């Protein structure tokens, strides 16, 4: 279960925003995509799943277990999404449908890929809610997104992404929009879920300190190009690219720990 990205290019309205990006995510690995805003990291992730905005064009190669994803029909990609590859987005406030209960939204993840009944899916949804440590799962599934806190909504998003036990989780700046106090909790949750299931992880962020807590390997992007690709420990101690050095300086001091994640 590996992801191999080779020479990925994304053009939007004639502008090249991802330029020949290549990296690998072996089975069970936790890789970070790190760079400043506008470096193309989010678009790289979206390109993998065929979720680029209208008007964007992707070329190059993205292989998931040897299967080429670029150019695949949306219908085929849709079967992969959620089932083999899950994704969590940055902004929990807008990522959830405001007029559906969170329970229904989690259950939908399950019902899309597994032909279970509504009742069974609803029961599974409660279980998934408990798995992401949502308080009072049986009551919370009947709530609407606007009734939950930011951290809770993000947990719901994680539950939706992992409900079908995908092999790869892509997390696009999942903690950036959250309170600092909540960030650590969500990171811990994601790390434990990923480790327990032996999932691969692609974690996107601009914060090296956050990355150091959750990833073992880092790919640094600038202007849509890879400028450094090394284990996280190396990025933290002996960065070879000035971009990485800059990110190091910007990293949140309080979360920074030498040695990084295991």
């Amino acid at each position, binding site marked *: 279960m590996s992801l191999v990205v080779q020479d990925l290019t994304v053009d939007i309205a004639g502008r090249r925003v991802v330029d020949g990006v290549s990296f690998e995510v072996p089975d069970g690995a936790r890789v970070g995509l790190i760079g*400043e805003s*506008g470096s193309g990291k989010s678009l790289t992730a979206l390109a993998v799943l065929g979720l680029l905005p209208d008007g964007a064009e992707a070329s190059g190669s993205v292989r998931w277990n040897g299967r080429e994803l670029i150019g695949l029909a949306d219908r085929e990609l849709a079967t992969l999404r959620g089932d083999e590859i899950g994704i969590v987005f940055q902004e929990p406030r807008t990522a959830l449908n405001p007029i559906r209960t969170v329970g229904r939204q989690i259950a939908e993840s399950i019902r899309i890929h597994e032909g279970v009944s509504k009742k069974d899916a609803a029961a599974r949804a409660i279980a998934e809610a408990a798995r992401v440590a949502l308080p009072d799962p049986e009551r919370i599934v009947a709530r609407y997104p606007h009734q939950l806190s930011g951290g809770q909504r993000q947990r719901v998003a994680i539950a939706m992404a992992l409900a079908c036990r995908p092999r790869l989780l892509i997390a696009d700046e999942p903690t950036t929009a959250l309170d600092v106090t909540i960030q650590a909790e969500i990171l811990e949750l994601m790390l434990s879920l990923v480790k327990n299931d032996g999932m691969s992880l692609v974690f996107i962020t601009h914060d090296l300190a956050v990355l150091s807590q959750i990833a073992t390997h880092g790919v640094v992007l600038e202007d849509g190009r890879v400028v450094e690709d090394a284990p996280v420990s190396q990025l933290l101690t002996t960065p070879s690219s000035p971009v990485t050095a800059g990110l190091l*300086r910007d990293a949140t001091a*309080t979360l920074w720990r030498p040695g990084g994640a295991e």
Partner: protein
Amino acid sequence: MSDPSTGSGTTTGSATDAVARRSRWRWLRRLWQLSTGRFGIIVVLVVLATAVTAGLWTPFDPQQVEISNRWAAPGWPHLLGTDGSGRDILSLIMAGARTTVFVAIGAGVVATVIGIALAALGALTARWMRESVAVFVDILIAFPVLIIAMMISAVWGGSLAVVIWSVGIGFGVNIARVTRPELRRVLHSDFVLAGRASGLTPLQNLMRHLLPNVAPVFIVQLSWAMAVAVLAEAGLSYLGFGAPVTEPSWGLLLAELQQYITIHPLSVVWPGLAITITVLGLNLLGDALRDATDPTLSRGRDRLHPPRGAIRHVPEVVA
């Protein structure tokens, strides 16, 4: 760009002022770049030009009756043919443009005055007054323009003034409703406070900060208001409550030609087309103005990319 309330990653600081000043006129260029904007501007200019020309010259006297030449087919010398009294249709259309322009501008002026007055009342006065105005405006919104026109016509009889006033009132209220929150928002924004702190008189403050923020929304509404005015003139003139029979009007022309629709079905095409194209042009102009002046669009619809360089601000301190 100088809008503090739009979402992700707005830059703040003195750099914004410079950018804001440059972008003040950028909307014009962008307007022309949009196909809707181009079409709208061209249509408006053509109609204006026709109206002005018609005041000085038309191929024939629009009122000139020539019974022997009734219902002539389009050709030479009557490029669009003649109507049931032998009048040249092209000249009638050209002359009608004057009425249309007159009504559109008149309605625009009335709507502007009423809109600004109500918006100002609803934003700048004491609380009880503001609330009453808000409620009043919400109620008036429900009055369709036609109802207002009927009310006025019942009392004073139909005329172009009726059209102008009813559209003016109807849309003035709409403009007030849209402009008032903008006014209030800007009034309480940091720019205004800063302006006051830096010693500007309230009036200067108003002009420098209020106008640029309120103007875009306002111009868009005005454009649409004028489109409605043209449609209203057509409809009301058709019903007999608009232009008097002595004035050339596209709506009146429709009414006159309608009676012969079974024998000369295509004669109504010309005034109808004239109205449609004019209204379309004004509508598209309004749409284009809205797109051209929308600050969030200047960064492109790319939500994934906050403006470049927005993050690097942490000083050199390292743990």
